[in-house]
């Protein structure tokens, strides 16, 4: 049985140490006394606790119990809205799957950054579904079951067709929608004087902003 004050001393020295220490290193802090019994006692004391005293070769150190390692990591969800570019890509994959990146670009009429598709894959909504057997063998993409689940769809056929989109006004050309919005803004300005249009600019501002960072996902 080691002297209690020696055990306490060894415990404190090892706790404050920045590196694993040999029995001799520790002893130097404790007036050269033999610390081996104290180390054995501490090793037994900490067995099964959240902290354990371990020996690696000649060196001793405290560490958190290996089975609790998962507690030391904590996941935090960061909710982020999908960018407009990514939303468009997702829509195109959903309506046209399987599609290659070149095909997505030709439908969107703009280049698509690699990162945009990566985001969709990270979200678990699209996956690489093989390669198209044409020159260059491009990767083709398709939606995943998680996509259907997230958007509450039984199948891709549940997505509204072009006729339905048109009926809902969703196929109105962007420019016209813009002009309508601009017209409203003009009207708003006339009605309410100089400051009257704060807040009425939203549709445009939002569209513009989305367009600008559309590709940065």
């Amino acid at each position, binding site marked *: 049985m080691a002297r209690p004050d020696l055990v306490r001393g060894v415990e404190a020295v090892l706790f404050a140490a920045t590196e694993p220490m040999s029995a001799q290193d520790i002893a130097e802090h404790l007036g050269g006394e033999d610390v081996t019994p104290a180390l054995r006692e501490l090793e037994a004391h900490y067995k099964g606790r959240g902290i354990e005293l371990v020996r690696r070769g000649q060196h001793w150190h405290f560490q958190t119990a290996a089975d609790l390692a998962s507690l030391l990591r904590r996941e935090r969800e960061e909710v982020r809205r999908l960018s407009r570019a990514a939303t468009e890509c*997702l829509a195109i994959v959903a309506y046209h799957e399987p599609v290659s990146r070149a095909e997505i670009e030709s439908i969107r009429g703009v280049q698509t950054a690699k990162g945009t598709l990566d985001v969709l894959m990270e979200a678990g909504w699209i996956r690489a579904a093989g390669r198209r057997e044409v020159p260059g063998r491009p990767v083709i993409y398709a939606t995943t079951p998680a996509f259907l689940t997230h958007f509450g769809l039984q199948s891709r056929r549940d997505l509204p067709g072009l006729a339905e989109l048109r009926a809902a006004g969703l196929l109105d050309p962007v420019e016209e929608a813009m002009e309508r919005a601009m017209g409203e803004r003009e009207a708003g300005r006339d009605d309410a004087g100089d400051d009257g249009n704060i807040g009425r600019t939203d549709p445009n501002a939002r569209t513009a902003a989305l367009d600008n960072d559309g590709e940065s996902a």
Partner: protein
Amino acid sequence: MNDTPSPAPLLSEAGWDAQAPADAEDAARLYIELDNWEGPLDLLLDLARRQKVDLRTISILELTDQYLEYIDTAGALKLELAADYLVMAAWLAYLKSALLLPKAEQEDPSPEELALRLQLRLQRLAAMREAAARLMARDRLGRDNFLRGAPEGLRVMKRKAWQCEWFDIVHAYGQVKARTAPVVHMVKDRAVMTLESALSRVSAMLGVAIDWMELRQFLPPHADPQLRRSALASSFAAALELAKQGKADLRQDTAFGPLRLRSAER
């Protein structure tokens, strides 16, 4: 608190003492080294402590004498004194004379009040001085207690949860389709006045007009702004065409002024 003041440490940086404060020095030098004190109040407190009596029962008159004596000593040694020490000296000299005056001639506030105020200030400074010493003497982290030398650290992993709704997808698809649809589609339902209709409209109206008419008067009065813009352009082109054909006279008095026309066949 020590009864004797510690020697003035050299300040290496604002607020932190230099590592090794000089040890006890010549007492005589201490006596006149005003740098040792943090201002006149501090010097007064130090003098008060030498009286070795409770601050609540201190004799302000005696303290005043000691302070003035100090200042005189410093003056005799030709030491530069900071202005606030001299201000305090002047104020104490006034206080002393007032305290010695007969009561009847006293002003408001009375010298007793002034003396009491000084006493209260000394008490408060002494209290904080002592509190500071006790605070500094506590077990302090990094001096008496130590944290773990090599903590594993805790990690927070950020996981992105992407948010997108059914409508966003459908809407986005509509936008893509609309954006990339043939241009013809977009012109089709735009309200325009063709050159032909403008020509017939302008020439018909010129036929019945009596005098010069401004171009704008030929425009359809109740059309929406978009149609009016188109009608203005077409009517202008029509007016030029009619003038070229010799059917109309054009007149514009100033640059950008109103364009007027009338029938050439009068």
